[in-house]
């Protein structure tokens, strides 16, 4: 039986959006390196051809850090082969991607322990010790 993959449909198209995106990342990195602000790019808002998202991922590669945050479904945080450039994939509880970002930062905000959570944690620990 033939599968869908055997139907020859070529999708090798370039929208020309990949290069500018990589340049944007380069500029953002330089800004970060010279002590400036970080940058976030929303990948779900870019008009990309079917193969281009993969091309971006390939170009960026994978770096040293990989983390998963479990809050309202898994969030995958991957540092790319360019330190300071992170690929963040938010999924919902059904493992479906709900949003994708490229963050140019020293550490993605989501990895930091949050003040509200720390406060809640202190409360819980104190409760624990009291009992």
């Amino acid at each position, binding site marked *: 039986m033939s599968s869908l993959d055997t139907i*020859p*449909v*070529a*999708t*090798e*198209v*370039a*929208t*020309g959006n990949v290069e500018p995106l990589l340049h944007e990342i380069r500029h953002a990195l330089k800004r970060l390196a010279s002590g400036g602000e970080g940058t*976030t*790019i*929303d990948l*779900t*808002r*870019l*008009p*990309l*051809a*079917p193969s*281009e998202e993969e091309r971006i991922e390939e170009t960026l590669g994978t770096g040293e850090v990989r983390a998963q*945050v479990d*809050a*309202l*479904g898994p*969030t995958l945080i991957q540092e790319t082969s360019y330190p300071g450039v992170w690929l963040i994939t*938010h999924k*919902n*509880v*059904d493992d*479906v*991607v*709900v*949003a994708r*970002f490229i963050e140019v930062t020293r550490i993605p*905000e*989501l990895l930091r322990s*949050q*003040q*509200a*959570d720390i406060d*809640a944690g202190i409360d819980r620990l104190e409760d624990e010790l009291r009992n």
Partner: protein
Amino acid sequence: MPKDQNLGEYLRLQGVSRRGFLKFCSATASLMALPPSAVAQVAEALATARRPSVIWLSFQECTGCTESLTRSHAPTVESLIFDAISLDYHHTLQAAAGHGAEAAREAAQEENKGEYILVVDGSIPVGNPAYSTIAGISNLDMLKNAAQDCFAIVAVGTCAAFGGLPNANPNPTGAVSVSEIIKDKPIINVSGCPPIPAVITGVLAHFLTFGSIPELDSLGRPAAFFGQNIHDRCYRRPFYERGQFAATFDDEGARKGWCLYKLGCKGPTTYNACATVKWNQGTGFPIQAGHGCIGCSEPNFWDKGGFYSPISAGMWGTREQLLGAAAVGAALGVGSAIAARRRQKKAQETVL
């Protein structure tokens, strides 16, 4: 979620951490097509947001819009948004029907006077109101009654926004859009047949976050989603520029993913977010699947010639009509020749 609680408290009580909340805000900002830099602002607004009351009326429609919504691709985020709003009446989704349900609607309207959001899908038959009634109340009366005290109206789907299919030629029911009936309330047209689910929730999220009407285009559609046409964001655009077009659905061009303009793609004149937000869990959109855009988010898209005839072909009529024009021209020519001959003859006679 009790009504006086704000969203931040509610989520915390649900065991959602601050991290989870931030993730929710990022996804929501992305959903609303806001730049990532707005996430902090969204987080701040959402933490203290009050839950708006929503009344959803379904008129002459096919339920495709509700189907689209319930299949939206960000269930966690959407369900949180739906949790966060208070959907006090949804004719299609609720179990109750008839007079009891209507009483509940009226109670909700009374309780949230001036604050509730009225969502409408489907067009309103004004030719003969009996074409569509709920519990004996005509769509027209129900819309007028429910619109009276609302804060704003969201017209979901091309039927509610512009009349849609029921309004297509010859429009047997005399169907009209919401904006043709209600003139004194802000109306947000979330058009599409059906609209992209993320766009429906994006608009609701905007209310939830900012409690205000989003910026609209000239047709009353949220500019964040309808600001750009499909063609401008279409990944097949380079083929259009290069003049590489599929001429049939199974030729080489079609297989190579060339531009679908000649197969009737209405992308150049259609404003919607399909090319970026996409459909079916973000996997693609019609053009990506090899079919041209049919222009479903534009007014009267059913009556703009064929879905498969190129935009520039226009509706010039039939070859018979062109031949008819030639015949008329010929008749005129014969007429003026006869007139000229007469004139010449008379002139000659007077000379002689």
